[in-house]
């Protein structure tokens, strides 16, 4: 039966990428001045593993390239080559090249050989210069001293296993069987060394064999059968034409091996220095996890339905009722625990997202000529896998910004009495049901004058107006706003802070900035721990119940009719303290009949989306609860201003409001005026 090895490819790609990540960390450690041999071992093992898998699964390019890397590392490991910054840079580049190769293989695209070929050449040159030849390349040659000619007659073989032969796990019978497969074998056992039964140690081998093997058989085939046991026996192999020589110790087979060194000194592998996560783990497909999470979501809904029914049950006697209620309460506790446990399955430490930053900071700071130290803390803080995947890009942008615009050049820092080496700090922690990630630096901070000037230039700020602190800092998140003198390729074109904020908002979170001129800036990102569950505020609109995400709600208040102003041709605005915010009557918006068609007596839920505020007019505020987000698109389609649906305790469906889209819908028709600062916000 043939096994199709391509089914193992994906696993090979994934683990190779893991190895490459470990190698990169280790290389950065070495660069920092580490000299730990175990660190070198990690790098070596990574390359070795990728090479082995690459060759096994038929990825020749990967195997060949990695072979060079492995050879270099072996030299370093055996102290034949000294680690220099150049070598580390070359190895880091090799890691990049291999990543690209694996990526190309994964995607099924062509491997770009230009980069790898150049690097391969440099590696080869380097290894050649060191004076030693490369280790055996993947086509190990077997040197056979005896002639390989096929002998028509056959061979005569004296096979004398050493006493301890069995302890190697080899079985003479196995070897004889193999020889018998090659041709016609005559076996004569030599029991002359066999002691008496009482003196015999059953674990020792006292037997020897004289064999005659007839047939057209090459010497190599015979050597193959004895390949494993050369050092454990005396062998004389002769073509049948020549007479047997007197038994001598050195056999022609043994001449082949250059050296039979006993186990060389091996470095003691340090226990516990394992780069992989401690403890056992198994790989599980994401689909299986999602299925379980969905099922638990269903369970939560069913359980809350039962709780509602339980609260309404009549007609049972007291004991039964109490038992029922107790049971339901217990069920709720169990379900909550199960839900929390299941949510944790998809949670991974944020170190996965942080891991790219040491390299990024290292490369970027040298490119910019700045000295920066990156500090990571709270790497074990866990968050949902999907959230983590999506937070990567925003974080990269923030860190790049800090490097590009925040941290000053060494001379500038010195002249300000700051240490030459700037600090960038990535920190994560849990707060309530959220994860908080902070990106802070001790650089120049946000320049308020420049921001204000730019804002005026872009028409985001009216002339002569001095915005307050909050407004200034908020301006940097405005679309189309960039204070970079030139759009450096470091921070990238067209990727602005507005995209960062939008990405974070899409994840159900938000981002804030605080900054001290000359001292630094801090960006604080707050994210919910999971995407599938939402903290919601239930609101009643007519006879319908909607869910507003708590994270979008700024405040809720009773509508005061006198504060409503109609702005000609633009709808209505509400005076909220010093601001005028547009309002949207959800009853009208969603075409719901309601007894109370006026605005008085209703409630205003002020939400924030896309950087703007909007007041939603609703009839009533119902409770707050966690809701499981269900997709409308699975069987229907996306709906404007609605981000999804959920199933309430009574089994009915409630739609979840999308604050951002509602805000856009409200502003799409009109501009609104902020009378406090007297500026005009252009329509989106």
């Amino acid at each position, binding site marked *: 039966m043939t096994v199709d090895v391509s089914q193992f490819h994906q696993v090979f790609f994934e683990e190779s990428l893991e190895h490459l990540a470990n190698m990169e960390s280790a290389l950065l450690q070495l660069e920092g001045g580490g000299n730990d041999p175990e660190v070198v071992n990690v790098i070596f093992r990574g390359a070795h593993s990728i090479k082995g898998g690459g060759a096994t699964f038929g990825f020749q390019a990967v195997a060949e390239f990695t072979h060079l890397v492995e050879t270099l590392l072996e030299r370093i490991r055996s102290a034949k080559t000294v680690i220099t910054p150049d070598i580390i840079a070359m190895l880091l580049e090799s890691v990049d090249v291999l990543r690209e190769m694996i990526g190309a293989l994964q995607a099924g695209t062509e491997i770009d050989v230009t980069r790898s070929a150049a690097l391969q050449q440099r590696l080869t040159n380097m290894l050649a210069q060191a004076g030693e030849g490369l280790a055996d390349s993947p086509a190990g040659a077997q040197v056979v001293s005896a002639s390989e000619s096929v002998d028509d007659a056959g061979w005569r073989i004296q096979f004398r296993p050493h006493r301890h032969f069995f302890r190697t796990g080899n079985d003479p019978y196995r070897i004889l069987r193999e020889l018998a497969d090659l041709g016609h074998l005559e076996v004569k056992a030599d029991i002359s060394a066999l002691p008496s039964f009482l003196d015999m140690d059953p674990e020792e081998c006292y037997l020897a064999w004289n064999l005659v093997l007839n047939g057209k058989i090459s010497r190599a085939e015979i050597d193959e059968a004895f390949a494993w046991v050369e050092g454990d026996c005396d062998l004389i192999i002769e073509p049948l034409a020549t007479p047997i020589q007197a038994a001598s110790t050195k056999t022609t087979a043994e001449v082949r091996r250059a050296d039979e060194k006993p186990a060389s000194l091996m470095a003691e592998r340090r226990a516990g220095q394992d780069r992989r996560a401690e403890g056992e783990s198994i790989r599980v497909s994401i689909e299986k996890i999602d299925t379980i999470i969905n099922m638990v979501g269903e369970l939560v*809904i069913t359980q809350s339905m039962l709780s509602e029914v339980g609260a309404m049950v009549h007609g049972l006697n007291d004991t039964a009722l109490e038992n029922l209620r107790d049971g339901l309460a217990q069920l709720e506790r169990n379900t909550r625990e199960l839900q929390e446990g299941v949510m944790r399955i998809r949670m991974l430490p944020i170190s996965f997202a942080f891991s790219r930053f040491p390299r990024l900071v290292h490369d970027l700071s040298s490119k910019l000529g700045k000295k920066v130290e990156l500090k990571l803390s709270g790497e074990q803080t866990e968050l949902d896998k999907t959230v983590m995947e999506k937070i990567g890009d925003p974080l990269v942008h923030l860190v790049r910004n800090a490097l590009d615009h925040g941290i000053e050049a060494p001379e500038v820092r010195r002249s300000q009495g700051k240490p030459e080496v700037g600090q960038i700090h990535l920190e994560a922690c849990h707060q309530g049901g959220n994860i908080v990630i902070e990106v802070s630096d001790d650089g120049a901070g946000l320049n308020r004058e420049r921001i204000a000037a730019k804002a005026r230039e872009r028409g985001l700020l009216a002339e002569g107006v001095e915005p307050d602190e909050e407004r200034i800092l908020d301006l940097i998140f405005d679309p189309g706003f960039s204070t970079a003198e030139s759009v450096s390729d470091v921070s990238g074109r067209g990727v602005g802070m507005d995209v960062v904020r939008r990405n974070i908002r899409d994840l159900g979170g938000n981002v804030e900035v605080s900054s001290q001129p000359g001292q630094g800036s801090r960006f604080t990102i707050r994210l919910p721990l999971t995407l599938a569950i939402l903290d919601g505020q239930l609101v009643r609109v007519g006879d319908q119940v909607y869910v507003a995400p708590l994270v979008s709600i700024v405040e809720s208040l009773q509508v005061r009719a006198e504060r409503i102003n109609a702005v000609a041709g633009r709808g209505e605005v509400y005076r909220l303290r010093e601001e005028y915010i547009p309002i949207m009557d959800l009853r009208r918006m*969603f075409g719901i009949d309601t007894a109370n068609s006026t605005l008085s007596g209703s409630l205003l839920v002020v939400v924030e989306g896309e950087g703007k505020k909007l007041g939603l007019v609703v009839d009533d505020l119902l409770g707050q609860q966690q809701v499981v987000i269900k997709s409308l698109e699975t*069987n*229907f389609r996306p709906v*404007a201003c609605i981000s999804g649906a959920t199933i309430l305790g009574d089994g*009915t*469906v409630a739609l979840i409001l999308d604050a951002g889209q509602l805000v856009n*819908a409200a502003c799409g028709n009109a501009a609104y005026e902020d009378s406090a600062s007297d500026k005009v916000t252009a329509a989106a």
Partner: protein
Amino acid sequence: MSTLNAMQNDIGLGVAVNADQYLTFMLAGEEYGVDILRVQEIKGWGKVTPIPGTPEYVRGVMNLRGTIVPILDLRKRFCMDQIDYGPTTVVIVLRVECEGRDRIMGIVVDAVSDVYAVPMEELRPSPDFGGNVHVEFVRGLATVDEKMVIILNIDKLLNADDLEAVSDAE
């Protein structure tokens, strides 16, 4: 097999070779049928959550054991008169194929009728009624016990426009 089906669909008889059983229901005095293999279940009418910005015949969505399922009112879809829902009003939950995907959706009908077997050959093409039920919804006409049964093409009930996201609210 799939080419055969495609061909048959072009002719308007799209019936897979083996499935010629239909669940029939009443709507405004007429009897209609749907491929029984597409029927997932039959539910009594229950509370439906309306969805803003959708055509009138999309009554809203309903919770079907944890899945959000859109519910279509066939009377509205076929531009017939509205009636109040009564005790026999039911929702037939169907598996439809729309815009390249399988979806679950429910249709509100006056009452469920029966299950008939109609061999493929006996399905006649439908002339354009010129009125209520547009020919695109009709797969063919069958005669059972001297009654006419209108066999529906349920994959067409939710059309492409309905399934596009509406990017701006009104």
